[in-house]
């Protein structure tokens, strides 16, 4: 027997209404990213949990409205999540009735709550960091790029850019100051690295 290829999102959405396994596969594939997206836009772990449950509830009840010729499944899914984050899915129809029966926040354990609270903090810091990096001068970012890409010391990278080591260190210091101001507090090195690499 050869290697079997997993179904893509469009194929899953097409069978999702009739096939619990299809829904499960779609859910597992996207639940982490949707949770992160909502963590970026929600205030509390309970809000995140309610948003995730409402988003996938909408997937269940609206999959029939997805048409692959009109766009990607990912954009369709994020549109739902965005609407849920905005609290705009307010039409009091069947989905609203189901939503009352299924509130994600009631499923949170203390461990989940702590985990989502950390995620919210992380995503919030990442968003601020993103803004700081977007508005930083190009010469500071160029040097930072070298530091990450070349795995060399800042002194060597400064020389390779044709500037003195002390000028290079000053650029990195200025950038560090911008980042620290932006996130309004201490940020661990791991988060900083992850966020920079991700956003760049």
């Amino acid at each position, binding site marked *: 027997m050869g290697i*079997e*290829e*997993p*179904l893509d999102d469009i*194929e*899953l959405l097409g069978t999702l*209404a009739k096939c619990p*396994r299809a*829904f*499960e*596969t779609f*859910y*597992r*594939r996207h*639940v982490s990213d949707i*949770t992160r997206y909502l963590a970026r*836009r*929600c*205030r*509390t772990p309970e*809000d995140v*949990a309610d948003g995730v*449950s409402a988003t996938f*509830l909408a997937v*269940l*009840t*609206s999959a*029939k*409205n997805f*048409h692959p*010729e*009109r*766009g990607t499944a990912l*954009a369709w899914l*994020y*549109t739902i999540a*965005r609407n849920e984050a*905005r*609290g*705009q899915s*307010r*039409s*009091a*129809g*069947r989905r*609203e*009735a189901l*939503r*009352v*029966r*299924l509130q*994600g926040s009631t*499923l949170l*354990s203390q461990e*989940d709550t702590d*985990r989502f609270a950390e995620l*919210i903090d992380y995503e*919030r810091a990442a*968003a601020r960091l993103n803004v700081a990096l977007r508005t930083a001068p190009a010469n500071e970012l160029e040097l930072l790029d070298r530091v990450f890409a070349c795995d060399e010391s800042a002194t060597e990278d400064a020389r390779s850019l044709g500037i003195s080591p002390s000028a290079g260190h000053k650029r990195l210091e200025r950038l560090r100051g911008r980042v620290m101001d932006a996130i309004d507090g201490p940020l661990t090195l791991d988060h900083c690295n992850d966020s920079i690499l991700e*956003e760049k």
Partner: protein
Amino acid sequence: MKQINSINVIDAGRPFEERLLDELLAVQASVNGDRRATRSHGRSRRIILVAAVAAVAAVAMGVVVFQTLPGSVGTPTSASASPFLRQAARAVLAAPTFNEQSAAVPQANQYVYSETEDPNGTLTQIWLSADGSLPGLQRWRSGIKGEVPASGAIPYPACTVAQGESTGCFPQSGYFPDMPTNPNALQSYLNQIGLIDTAAAGSSASSTPGWMDDDLAKGIMYLMATSYLLPAQQSALFELMAQTPGFTIVPNMADAIGRVGVGVEWNFQGDSGAVIFNPATYALLGARTWPGPPILSAPYDGDALLGISVVNSIPPSQTPTGS
């Protein structure tokens, strides 16, 4: 042959994601069962029930209903909506559309109350704390017999604009005194406080054609349907839509309760939507969204705005606890 392949992204120990999946699968089974059970309902009986419930609800709630405009539903055109929106932006400065009894702006301890009705006759009531510092409330009564539950309520957690900016919560305010009246500044402000998300929070989804139109239209529709807006703020919202490419005009479009107005339409991923305005006063009548092209006779989701006013309290029995 392809197969459905579960991807293990969840740690062991039954975390939230696993428990939620169990619940969603149970709902899926329940929904399929409900569909089979409701197949025998006759269409004519449903229409009668919808009409009866809607009529009773309108009388019982004492709703403020805008004047129904004459005219028939016409054929959509592809003309830009910008001229209409710019005219609206000018007109509302002289004649504000907010339908309230007092000219005084809402105070911090007051609520902005709104009522909408969907095509099935479902009535939705929303109370938003003027400054977002108090919990709000959504309450609805389904127009279709058999929905479970037929009525219900959901509390909205308190979230002020300042909290929205600092923590990312969705502002549950009914009044935004600091909302800019310059369209460009307004767009930045709405993004900043999370009422719109034109950049899709940095995800690739924002590059999808039509994302901006869809996001902006829904955000503005939400504001107009649930908020007390100063004339200059209303004007800036119209101007922001006018300067955003992609909106087209539909001269005659009926809202969920049959009032005919001017539709401002957009498309996104093959789906479509329209915000409907009174052509004489430019007040919001309602909105439609279609799962597909905007065929006026096709089924759609949407609401008609019945009324909006400033009130002093949430009904005592419905006051939510906590936030």
